[in-house]
């Protein structure tokens, strides 16, 4: 799939299956070798977090074993080495999402912090009472709550573009909500609860026509296909390392250089300044202006290794494999009696959210867990999405690059067991 141009996984997946050896790829992920309650682990909770390839684990080990030092500080050998590796990882991220320059890549804790950063710098500086921020009805709480907080502080309004019964954006309604008062649009690229792939390029185009910048929450998109921020032409793009086979605690905020330069700093501290006196402080240039304090160096370098792993495997091959698997799983689940898929968008990433009539998702989750199958159950930090579909929770199977058709079969067999217990 190519997320950037909407040639989506699942629609074009006959080709590369032969060259993509999922069983060999599985060998790279030590966590997948373990048994859970006497069964092989079937890990279908990739939208929550992905497992890590050995190369990422080894890279972090190597950093702490023989490269550990603080960055952008010392003149000594190790500090230079750590700084070089740290900045090399920034370049890897830049190429990975096709940003124009390294300095457009800001390292943060994760997607949540990236969104908060934009809320508390850009939005805080630009919002006035009566202004609006526009989001969609399928956002994760982390792309709702920061905007509610800043709107409440500035006397601004949060507007929500509705979604259809299939879980798709309704672009006509979105267009109607773009007003002279809208100061920012913030939408998810792929919905974590529904799997919907949004037409982000079109959303950006429509918003820019009205002169409104767009932030894209890419946490669920980056693992599933090529993201090209320049093709999307979005102003900000946020994602997390741990969902893309990298470490937890590290994430990325991409921002167009001109915008980042116009923004006030996020947090004060070391590394984000160029000079400090008690009278006056001059802030560092971007991206360092937004990276106060010692960063998560091991996380950054580990993320670089994860990007190498994905790039070497081939992100388009991963997308094709997942598209095939999504198709297979959708067909397999659709014939299970009383099962209803929640989120049936035409363009989807490999996320299957569903409910079983008469059985609460938690009970489904517990029974699947007994079979060694890890799924997420609950509202997926997207309560408004649950409300939209009139359900308290769903079961969510989210697929990754290492999942197989056999694992989908195991899920289906276990779901029949659920029906047996609850017949």
């Amino acid at each position: 799939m190519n997320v950037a141009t909407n040639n989506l996984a699942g629609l074009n997946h006959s080709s590369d299956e032969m060259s993509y050896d999922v069983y060999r790829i599985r060998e790279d992920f030590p966590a997948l070798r373990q048994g859970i309650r006497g069964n092989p682990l079937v890990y279908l909770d990739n939208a929550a977090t992905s497992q890590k390839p050995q190369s990422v684990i080894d890279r972090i080990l190597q950093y702490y074993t023989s490269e550990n030092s603080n960055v952008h500080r010392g003149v000594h050998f190790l500090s230079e080495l750590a700084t070089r590796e740290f900045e090399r990882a920034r370049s890897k991220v830049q190429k990975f999402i096709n940003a124009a320059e390294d300095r457009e890549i800001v390292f943060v804790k994760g997607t949540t912090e990236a969104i908060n950063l934009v809320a508390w710098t850009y939005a805080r500086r630009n919002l006035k009472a009566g202004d609006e921020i526009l989001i969609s009805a399928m956002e994760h709480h982390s792309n709702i709550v920061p905007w509610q907080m800043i709107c409440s502080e500035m006397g601004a309004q949060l507007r929500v573009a509705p979604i259809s019964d299939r879980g798709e954006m309704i672009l006509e309604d979105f267009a109607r909500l773009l007003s002279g008062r809208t100061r920012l649009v913030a939408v998810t690229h792929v919905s974590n609860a529904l799997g919907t792939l949004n037409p982000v390029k079109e959303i950006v185009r429509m918003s820019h026509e009205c002169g409104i910048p767009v932030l894209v929450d890419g946490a669920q998109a980056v693992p599933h296909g090529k993201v090209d921020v320049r093709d999307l032409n979005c102003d900000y793009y946020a994602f997390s390392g741990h969902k893309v086979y990298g470490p937890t605690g590290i994430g990325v905020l991409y921002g167009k250089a001109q915008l980042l330069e116009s923004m006030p700093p996020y947090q004060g501290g070391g590394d984000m300044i160029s000079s400090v006196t008690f009278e006056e402080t001059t802030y560092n240039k971007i991206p360092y202006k937004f990276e106060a304090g010692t960063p998560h160096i091991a996380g950054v370098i580990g993320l670089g290794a994860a990007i190498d792993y994905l790039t070497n495997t081939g992100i388009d091959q991963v997308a094709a494999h997942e598209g095939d698997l999504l198709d297979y799983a959708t067909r397999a689940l659709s014939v299970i009696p009383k099962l209803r898929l929640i989120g049936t968008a035409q363009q989807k990433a490999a996320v299957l959210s569903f409910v079983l009539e008469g059985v609460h998702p938690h009970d489904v989750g517990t029974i699947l867990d007994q079979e060694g199958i890890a799924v997420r159950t609950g509202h997926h930090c997207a309560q408004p999405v649950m409300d939209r579909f009139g359900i308290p929770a769903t079961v969510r199977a989210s697929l990754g690059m290492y999942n197989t058709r056999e694992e989908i079969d195991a899920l289906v067999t276990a779901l029949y067991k659920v029906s047996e217990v609850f017949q």
Partner: protein
Amino acid sequence: MSDLRDLYQEVILDHAKHPRNCRRQQAPSCLAQGNNPLCGDKVRIYLELDGSVIKDISFEGTGCAISTASASLMTESLKGKTLEEANRLFEEFHHLVTSPAEAIAQFPELGKLEVFAGVREFPVRVKCATLAWHTLKAALENKPAVSTE
């Protein structure tokens, strides 16, 4: 599957599918709302007291099989009990679902509630089994709402 059968005993499945005393009361002596924000489970407990005796108890809510069955069986076992007896049952039930198997004391008063013994093998489900009970306690202590995580 054996642990699973211990968790989803017939009595529990029966009460989950056909909950008893699942109704609103128009003028309860006390009531409270219980939420499990992590799961989205919600339960509301209504009590009609006659002095210190629970004359009527009922509930409304949405939740998994364990939380629904727990609320249903709780209302069945508490009807006609004194508040003192209810408090004792709360403690005994809590002990039943949270203590390790080898440390379990015998409480004959628990009666049917013993079917929840299997929950202790599923630590993440303990809060499902205890939500109704914590809500009951909140109602009796005149707290409008309680939240378990």
